[in-house]
């Protein structure tokens, strides 16, 4: 049995597929392991950005045709567009509803901004603008 170029290609594709999917598995593991909601969002939305890229690259190599490359690219770009949006929505809701463990937060630049905003709103409620 001789090792041809095609079998090398298959080998690389197999490696990429396994590595990519195991990154997604690590993402799932992180989801269980991390201590609070926001760190979990990192694990839930991030490692599989690279994981999906590698898996799709492996798929492209395995199929071995240039025609599928744009579809795979579109699939990856869709992930790039949607993952941050969902992470942002959950993250913002978490922060605003105070589901934050202060022990796990060292620097918080947003706290004083939110406090200032709350103060202004309270002030506006006390003295409604005349006219």
């Amino acid at each position, binding site marked *: 049995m001789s090792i041809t170029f095609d079998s090398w290609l298959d080998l690389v594709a197999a490696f990429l597929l396994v590595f990519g999917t195991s*990154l997604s598995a690590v993402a799932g593991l*992180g989801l269980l*392991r991390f201590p609070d909601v*926001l760190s979990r*969002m990192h694990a839930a939305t991030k490692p599989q950005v690279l994981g999906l890229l590698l898996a799709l690259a492996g798929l492209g190599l395995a199929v071995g045709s240039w025609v599928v490359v744009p579809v795979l690219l579109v699939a990856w770009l869709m992930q790039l567009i949607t993952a941050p949006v969902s992470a*942002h929505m959950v*993250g913002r809701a978490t922060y605003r509803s105070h589901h934050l463990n202060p022990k796990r937060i060292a620097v918080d630049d947003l706290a004083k901004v939110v406090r200032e905003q709350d103060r*202004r709103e309270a002030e506006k409620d006390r003295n409604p603008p005349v006219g």
Partner: protein
Amino acid sequence: MTSDSEHHTTDSENKPSAIEDRRSRLSQWPMIVGLTFLWVALWQDFTPGTIVLGLVFSLIVMLSFPLPPVPFADRINVFHSFTFIVYFLWKITVATWQVASKSISPGPNVINSVVAVKLRTQDDLLMTLIGHVYALIPGSLVIDVDRPSSTLFLHVIDVPDEQAAEAFRVDSLDIEARMIRGFGSKRDYKLVQAEDRAKDGVVLRHTELEANDDPVATEGESWTS
């Protein structure tokens, strides 16, 4: 009309929001290119017939479902854009490794921070893209945005003190500079060029460069999101 002129409006109350902004439909041509690409990619067929049909359908979609017009950048540098994409992939790889090893290693061992990063740009589209890039690089997550001062609030994993937070700020502003070099507006690019000339690592602001004619994004703006 370029994105420049709207930012120079002296009265911030009159600054058109994306929805009120009446840009010509023609300025949205990158949308048609994108939709046509999607069409051709899904058909997996690159013959001229499919491309023309894709163009026709994209035009119909654009005209029958108009979205608020987006100010696309007035310049693009292919070399810098390509460097940025390579840098982005590298950054994703490194950060994925960090987050993955954190999630495997035993014990709850992460101290996080919420870091404010004040961006240079005031473009809606570029700000969105930058927010996406920060969010895609594992370890940071946009949790809030202050539009008037173009500040992003990011939840960053494994930042135990103010020093690390400052290092993160420097790093993210470097990513922004790379993006502006690649596909930022001429106005933002001037700012980055001035920084590159100075070579002292100080981040410049539009308010400093155009102290006389730009009251937008100064202190005392309302902090809303």
